[in-house]
């Protein structure tokens, strides 16, 4: 039995709808998993784990994030600073706050220190902040993945 050769059809129009559906699903998935607080993260820092750490219910008011690496260098907003430089930076921050009529006491200094950082360096950071009138600190820890969360 012989088939007649199919005539070559020039216009082939596949149904695009399922593909577009899947594509949109993917877009929505990646959009929702997008981490918006990415500027607060630093790949170099391995936070210590704590079973009691849980994300704060409300956002911290005007946070200043200090990142402390295991080598003892401090990062503020992507720039590497030494502790004496940090003092002048904090002073500028404080002046900016006073200009806006806010008390530095209300600001929170978030300290993200590496688990192998020295305790004394963390204390020195706190000291430097205290000298500029900051008194609220938040030591950041990673949530323990093994404990049940409410």
């Amino acid at each position: 039995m012989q088939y007649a050769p199919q005539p070559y059809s020039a216009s082939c129009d596949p149904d695009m709808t399922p593909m577009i559906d899947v594509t949109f699903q993917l877009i929505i998935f990646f959009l929702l998993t997008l981490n918006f607080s990415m500027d607060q993260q630093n790949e170099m820092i391995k936070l210590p784990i704590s079973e009691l750490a849980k994300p704060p219910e409300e956002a911290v008011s005007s946070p200043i994030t200090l990142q402390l690496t295991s080598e003892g260098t401090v990062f503020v907003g992507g720039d590497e600073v030494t502790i004496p430089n940090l003092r002048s930076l904090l002073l500028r921050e404080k002046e900016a706050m006073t200009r806006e009529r806010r008390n530095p006491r209300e600001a929170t200094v978030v300290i993200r220190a590496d688990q192998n950082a020295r305790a004394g360096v963390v204390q020195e950071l706190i000291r430097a902040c205290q000298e500029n009138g900051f008194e609220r600190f938040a030591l950041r820890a990673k949530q323990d993945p093994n404990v049940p969360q409410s």
Partner: protein
Amino acid sequence: MKFALASEQPVRVSMNMMPMIDVCFQLIIFFMLSLRLFSPEGDFNINMPMAAPTAAVASPDQIPIMKVRLRARADGELAAVQFGDRLLGKQSLEELHRVVATMNAELAEAATATQRQEIVDRLELLRSEVCRKVFQPLRQEVRKMVGDKAGPGAENTELELDCDYHLKYVYVMEAITAVSGYREGKEVTTLVGKIKFTPPRRL
């Protein structure tokens, strides 16, 4: 003026999907590349004014400030936990030092960076488990001091942490976790509301 009559057969208008699909793929690729999965993080709040107003009016029902001293070995590992003037968790500390010793020995033998990473990951888990055991007696002591009247009153209890300069921060965090509260299932009970640090000890 006359309009041409619409043809009787309906004309199938197919939209050109190509630009839309292109844009969609661009978006997918953008979101895919910016995808980084982080485990959630939490904070421990510490309120430390410059001049600590200690020795204020001590009301009779107020618990005196508890003092916790963490001593470090030369390599930054935890050497001793002291609550007031009592040493705590000696046996578990020996276990901790054994874990650290195995970690260092295995790290010395590791050849590649991936091997090192694997060893570090495995033994850090073990270390945090032992650490929890080390700080368990401290938590018991604090619970005894607070009288376990956990809840609203607990926010006013104060504790002072005194750490050696080169102690690794991970132990500080474990100590803070141990004293600030405990977890029973999903319930977290606060023990100490105010944690403070002493001024840094110079080397």
